C-alpha cells in the first residue's frame, strides 16, 4: 500500500470535511435535499401517482451551485463546465419522420405542435391544464440513442396494483436539459398497435399503445415541470404506481391479472420531455425510450370480505345491502401499512369504488349531533354508530372518517372544492368523483383488536373548520374500516359507509 496515496487521500478528506464548517453547506446541500424529500414524500402521502422519486446520479461538479440552485430552469453556472445542455430547440433540427413498426439506431421522439396560448407549461396558460394531444408526429432524431431505459422493473402488487421502477440514462455525449416531472410513463400491452385516444393522468398512462396512426403518437402535457441537467452517462430514477382503480378504468383493465399469470409481457415507455430554450412555445419535444420485460409478482386472492361486492352509483339506495367503499390503493400508498405505528398521524383520501355489500345493513348511525363554536368558527359533529346485525363485526375503531357533502346535488366529478383533514373530516360539494367512485379516507392509525357486538355502539367526533353553522342541505356519512384476517396486506381496504338518515 502506498503511504503517499493514503496521505493524499487523507488531505482531501480533511478538506472535504472542513467544507462542512466553512461553507454554507446547510443552504447548499441540506436545505435543497430537505425540499426535494418533502416534495417526494408529499406526493406519496396524498396518494398522488406519477414520478415519486427522482434521484440524480453522476451529476458533474459543474451542475451544483453552492446556493442550491441546481434545479433552476436555466441556471447561469459560472463554473468550469461551460458546456451548455442540449434543449429541445437544439434537437428539433435533425429530425426525420418515424413510421410505426420502423426500427432505427436513431433516437425515437414525439413532437407535439400547439397553437399559440395552448402550451400548458406556460405559466399564463396554466388553466389549459393537463391535456393529451393526439396529433404529435413520431420522429427520429440524429443517428444514435440519446437516452436509454435501464433497470426497469414491473411488479404486480397483491391487490392488483402495478409498480414500475426505471432508470433513464443519458447515453449521448452532451448534457441534456430534461424535465422528468413533466414526462409520462406508459405501461403498454401492445406498443405497436394503433389505438383510439388514450387517457393519461398525472404523468402516467396504461393501455395498449401510444400510436394514434402510423405516424402520430399521443403525449400528455401539463402539470408540474422541473427541468434539470443530465450529464452524459448520468441517469435519473423514476417510479410510479398504477393503482387497481386506475388500471380498471383503462383499456387494459385486466392487465395485472394477465401479467400475474404470465400471459403478457409489459412494455414500459418513457416520454421524456426535453426543456425548451426559454419560454415554452408552440412545439414540445419528448424523447422516447422503451423496454419490454416480464412482470414479477402476483395478484393474491383477496380476503373474503371483498367477495360479492356490487357497484353503487350516486343517489342509489338499498335496504338489502350495506354501502361501502372498496379502496384498491396498493400497499405503498396505504398509510396503515406504509407508515410505522408510532409515526405522526397521517391521512389520505384516495379514490375508491363505491360498492354495496349484499345482505342487509350492518351498521346504522343512531345519532348525529352538532356543536358550533362561533369564536373559532368550528363545527363539531359527534356521531354514534350501532351494530345493526345479530353478529359481531370486526372493525378498526381508529380508522374512521366523517364525510360531509355540502351540495350533494352536484353532479359526480364536478365538485368545486374538496378538503380532508387527518382526523378524517372529509368534505366537498359532493364526494362522488365519478359515477362509480368516491373519496375515501385511510389513516395510519389502527385499532382492530376488538369486535363491535350486536347492538354495540361506537362514538366519534370530527371538527370542520370555518363554519358558523351546519351547512344547509348538507349530508353526512361515517366511514369505518373493516378489519380483516389479512390486515397485513395494505393493497386494498374495505370501508363501510353509513349515511345519516335522521
Amino acid at each position: 500500500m502506498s503511504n503517499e496515496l493514503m496521505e493524499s487521500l487523507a488531505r482531501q478528506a480533511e478538506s472535504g470535511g472542513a467544507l462542512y464548517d466553512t461553507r454554507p453547506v446547510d443552504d447548499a446541500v441540506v436545505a435543497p435535499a430537505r425540499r426535494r424529500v418533502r416534495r417526494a414524500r408529499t406526493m406519496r402521502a396524498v396518494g398522488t401517482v406519477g414520478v415519486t422519486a427522482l434521484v440524480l446520479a453522476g451529476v458533474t461538479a459543474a451542475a451544483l451551485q453552492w446556493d442550491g440552485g441546481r434545479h433552476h430552469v436555466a441556471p447561469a453556472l459560472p463554473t468550469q463546465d461551460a458546456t451548455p445542455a442540449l434543449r429541445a430547440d437544439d434537437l428539433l433540427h435533425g429530425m426525420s419522420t418515424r413510421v410505426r413498426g420502423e426500427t432505427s439506431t436513431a433516437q425515437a421522439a414525439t413532437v407535439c405542435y400547439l397553437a399559440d396560448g395552448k402550451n400548458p407549461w406556460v405559466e399564463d396558460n396554466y388553466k389549459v391544464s393537463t391535456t393529451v394531444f393526439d396529433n404529435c408526429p413520431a420522429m427520429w432524431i440524429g443517428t444514435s440513442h440519446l437516452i436509454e431505459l435501464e433497470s426497469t422493473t414491473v411488479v404486480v402488487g397483491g391487490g392488483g396494483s402495478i409498480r414500475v421502477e426505471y432508470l433513464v440514462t443519458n447515453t449521448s455525449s452532451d448534457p441534456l436539459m430534461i424535465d422528468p416531472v413533466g414526462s409520462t410513463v406508459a405501461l403498454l400491452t401492445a406498443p405497436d398497435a394503433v389505438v383510439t385516444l388514450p387517457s393519461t393522468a398525472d404523468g402516467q398512462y396504461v393501455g395498449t399503445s401510444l400510436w394514434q396512426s402510423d405516424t402520430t403518437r399521443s403525449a400528455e402535457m401539463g402539470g408540474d415541470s422541473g427541468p434539470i441537467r443530465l450529464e452524459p452517462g448520468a441517469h435519473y430514477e423514476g417510479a410510479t404506481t398504477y393503482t387497481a382503480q386506475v388500471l380498471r378504468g383503462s383499456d387494459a383493465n385486466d392487465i395485472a391479472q394477465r401479467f400475474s399469470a404470465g400471459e403478457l409481457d409489459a412494455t414500459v415507455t418513457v416520454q421524456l420531455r426535453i426543456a425548451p430554450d426559454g419560454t415554452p412555445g408552440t412545439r414540445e419535444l419528448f424523447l422516447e425510450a422503451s423496454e419490454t420485460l416480464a412482470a414479477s409478482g402476483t395478484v393474491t386472492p383477496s380476503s373474503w370480505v371483498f367477495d360479492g361486492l356490487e357497484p353503487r352509483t350516486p343517489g342509489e339506495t338499498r335496504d338489502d345491502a350495506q354501502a361501502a367503499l372498496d379502496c384498491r390503493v396498493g400497499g405503498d400508498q396505504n398509510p396503515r401499512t406504509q407508515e410505522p405505528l408510532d409515526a405522526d398521524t397521517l391521512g389520505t383520501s384516495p379514490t375508491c369504488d363505491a360498492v354495496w355489500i349484499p345482505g342487509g345493513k350492518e351498521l346504522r348511525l343512531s345519532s348525529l349531533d352538532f356543536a358550533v363554536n362561533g369564536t373559532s368558527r368550528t363545527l363539531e359533529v359527534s356521531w354514534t354508530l350501532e351494530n345493526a346485525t345479530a353478529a359481531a363485526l370486526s372493525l378498526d375503531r381508529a380508522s374512521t372518517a366523517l364525510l360531509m357533502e355540502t351540495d350533494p346535488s352536484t353532479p359526480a366529478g364536478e365538485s368545486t372544492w374538496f378538503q380532508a383533514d387527518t382526523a378524517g373530516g372529509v368534505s366537498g360539494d359532493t364526494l362522488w368523483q365519478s359515477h362509480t367512485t368516491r373519496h375515501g379516507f385511510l389513516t395510519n392509525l389502527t385499532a382492530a383488536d376488538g369486535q363491535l357486538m350486536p347492538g354495540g355502539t361506537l362514538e366519534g367526533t370530527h371538527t370542520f373548520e370555518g363554519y358558523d353553522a351546519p351547512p344547509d342541505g348538507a349530508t353526512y356519512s361515517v366511514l369505518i374500516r373493516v378489519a380483516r384476517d389479512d390486515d397485513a396486506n395494505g393493497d386494498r381496504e374495505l370501508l363501510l359507509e353509513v349515511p345519516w338518515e335522521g
Partner: protein
Amino acid sequence: MTLRRFGGTIEAAKGTAVNRWARTLDATTRAHGAALLAYATVLTGDERAAAAMVEDALVATFGSGRAPETPDDALAAVRRRVQRAAVRRTQAGWDAEPADASSTGEALRTLTARERALLVMRYRDGLAVPAIAAAAGLHERAVREGLESAVERIVAARPEAGLSVEDALAGGLLETSDVEVGP
C-alpha cells in the same frame, strides 16, 4: 368509546409527518454531514460534485419508502448511495493521457471518476474487489478492470507512488460493514 381527535388539515399532517423524517435528516447531517462530505470529496476529488452527490443521496434515502429511523441507519444508506453514484459519475475536463505528476494528488487527477472511486474504496476503505463490487453495485470484472487501469495510470504518472496491480486486485477486506467514513 370516544375516538381520539386529531387536529389540522392533511397539509398540516404532512407537515408533522415530514418533521419526523426531517428531524432524522437533520440529525444525520449534524452527526455525519462532515464525514459524508469528506468521504464524497475523496471519492470524487471534487468538492462541488461531492456536495451534489451527498444531496442526491440524502434525497434518495429519505425521499421514498420508509425513511431511516436513526442517523446511523441513514449514514449507511447515504454512504452506499454515494459509493454507487461515485462509480457512475462522469466528469468534464478529464485528460485521458497520463502525464508526469509531481505529487500523488496530481496523479489522482489522471484517473476517470470510476477509477478514482474504486481506488479510494480499495485503499482508503480497505475493501477487496468483491466487497467493492457489492458496495458499488458493479460486476467484479468491472471493478477489477477499473482498479487495474487506475493503478496503471497512477504508476505511469508517479512511479514512486508504490502501487501495484497485484496488490490492488488481491488485497483488502471482504466485509463492508465496519468501514469508517470521514476524515
